């Protein structure tokens, strides 16, 4: 028994020794070391040995205390700030010198605030965020391709817009710009609260990007992965099919439009930005929308101070302005404009059948102008008191939201309806 102990001690000691060596080996041969030696080799060929020798070795990180981010991406992506490595393959290539990069410097922003991924990690899989218990995956081409984006790399716009939420028509953000245009055109705020204001028929979307994916009901999702992205996409394509009995009309969005809207909605997340990171004014698309830049500028200035600016300032071209001011026939034109910009079209058509609300063809014949004016002014109140309104509510189920229209706009609308009915 005791002789065996001596032998066991040799074996156990050997095991301990060997395992310790394994541990030391594992520690000293991480994946990133391989990338660094490959990079050193490529760099010495591309930019010369002298410059290649000055490149940092070991775990390299960009530490951004004000954003509470530590990005070790550059441990492997070493060429990110070395001009001359543009032609090298990933992960060694130079960061593309896109026009906005001079505002988003590496040392001030780091990597993950824009790209997503796990900055602390030093293994490929974990750093790209493709692991359990990490909520921010790398928003890269692969992910864009997974959801069929025509410009897959642009899925990153989700993160752009998390900070640039209050800027309009920002350069490069094609999807978000498209989606924001749609939000305005369809006037989503009639039914949804966005940025703290809007109707209460649909859910509050202000921070929809933070919503726990488990809270989406996937019973009617037939295609695609079980993800919030896919749910929102399918829902934009056909709301009533995904959420049975949904009041949201099918707007007939194209696939790309639905993807753009999904990205926009997912970008609506809470974020803590120190003052120096709040996007500044006048970053509208260069060359685009001339003449509105001044308005954008002043509006932006206001927004920078307010935390969550809401008001949708409709910037009008001079032509539009003169059209609205003209009397007489201009009233119908204004009514048309109100009808199209205030989101009426989301629920109503004129002569094209009923959507959520009734077709307004012939409405001036079935209702008096006085009733219509009353209705447009006191919608919610009349739903409780007026017999016709009550009946309508019973038929269509979805109550029409109270609109914020002044009497001039109401007159214009009724005039517009009348002209439509008379036209036939």
């Amino acid at each position, binding site marked *: 028994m005791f*002789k065996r102990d001596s032998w066991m*001690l040799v074996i156990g000691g050997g095991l301990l020794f060997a395992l*310790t060596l394994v541990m*030391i080996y594992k520690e000293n041969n991480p994946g990133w070391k391989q990338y660094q030696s490959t990079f050193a080799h490529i760099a010495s060929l591309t930019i010369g040995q002298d410059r290649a020798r000055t490149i940092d070795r070991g775990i390299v990180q960009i*530490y951004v205390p004000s954003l509470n981010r530590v990005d070790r991406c550059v441990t492997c992506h070493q060429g990110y700030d070395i001009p001359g490595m543009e032609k090298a393959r990933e992960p060694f290539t130079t960061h593309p010198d896109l026009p906005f990069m001079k505002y988003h410097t590496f040392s001030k922003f780091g990597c993950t605030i824009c790209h997503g991924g796990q900055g602390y990690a030093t293994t490929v899989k974990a750093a790209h965020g493709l692991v359990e218990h990490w909520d921010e995956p790398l928003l890269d081409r692969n992910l864009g391709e997974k959801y069929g984006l025509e410009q897959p790399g642009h899925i990153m716009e989700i993160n752009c817009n998390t900070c640039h939420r209050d800027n309009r028509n920002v350069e490069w953000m094609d999807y978000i710009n498209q989606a924001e245009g749609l939000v305005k055109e369809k006037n989503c705020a009639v039914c949804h609260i966005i940025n703290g204001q809007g109707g209460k028929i649909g859910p509050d979307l202000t921070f929809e990007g933070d919503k726990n994916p488990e809270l989406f009901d996937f019973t009617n999702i037939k295609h695609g992965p079980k993800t919030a992205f896919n749910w929102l996409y399918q829902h934009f394509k056909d709301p009533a099919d995904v959420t049975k009995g949904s009041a949201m009309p099918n707007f007939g969005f194209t696939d790309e439009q639905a993807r753009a809207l999904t990205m926009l909605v997912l970008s609506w997340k809470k974020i803590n930005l120190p003052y120096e990171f709040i996007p500044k004014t006048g970053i509208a698309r260069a060359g685009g929308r001339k003449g509105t830049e001044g308005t954008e500028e002043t509006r932006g200035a206001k927004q920078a101070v307010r935390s969550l600016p809401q008001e949708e300032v409709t910037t009008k071209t001079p032509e539009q302005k003169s059209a609205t001011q003209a009397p007489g026939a201009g009233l119908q034109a204004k009514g048309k404009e109100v009808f199209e910009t205030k989101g009426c079209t989301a629920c109503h058509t004129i002569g094209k059948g009923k959507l959520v609300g009734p077709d307004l063809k012939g409405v001036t014949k079935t209702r008096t102008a006085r009733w219509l004016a009353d209705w447009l002014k006191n919608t919610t109140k009349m739903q409780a008191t007026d017999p016709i309104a009550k009946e309508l509510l019973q038929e269509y189920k979805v109550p029409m939201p109270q609109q914020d229209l002044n009497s001039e706009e109401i007159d214009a609308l009724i005039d517009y309806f009348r002209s439509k009915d008379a036209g036939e």
Partner: protein
Amino acid sequence: MPDNDKEGKNTETQISRRRFLSYISGFFIVGGFLMQGLTALRSLFPRVLYEPPTKFKVGMPSDFPEGVRFIPEHRLFVIRDNDRFHCISAICTHLGCTVNLASYSPPKEYKSTSGTEVSETYEFHCPCHGSKYRENGNVYAGPAPKALPWFSMYLAPDGQIVVDTNVHVGHDFRLKV
């Protein structure tokens, strides 16, 4: 030892084999735990630091006034003389306190070690143990063992001055803008 007593005595080979075994296991165990201890110690030497970089931008040349400007977050002085800049550390070489700027107007006159009359408009005085430095950083009083080092400077592509505290330079160094 009872376990070896089957034949009533320990033979030479038994003893030497036992010793051999204990040497091997001793080597493994002591070696293993020693390595473990060293790795534990290694873990206390950080691989990454949550510190500001040692190379940093201090601003555009036009931002600097004539004369000395103290930059507290980096603990250094940037000195401008027309279009020529240099940079002196504000960390006392004695025990690391931050030295204060002492300005003189009219300029202070003193005899240099070579005997020539020199005048200067500022000096650096350490509040902790009374070390005193000339305007070029040379120590002339107090316990400080060395002169204040000068840091290398260069212009970044965007025109800002970059200070590299890792590179020390001689007193003839000037950044011309």
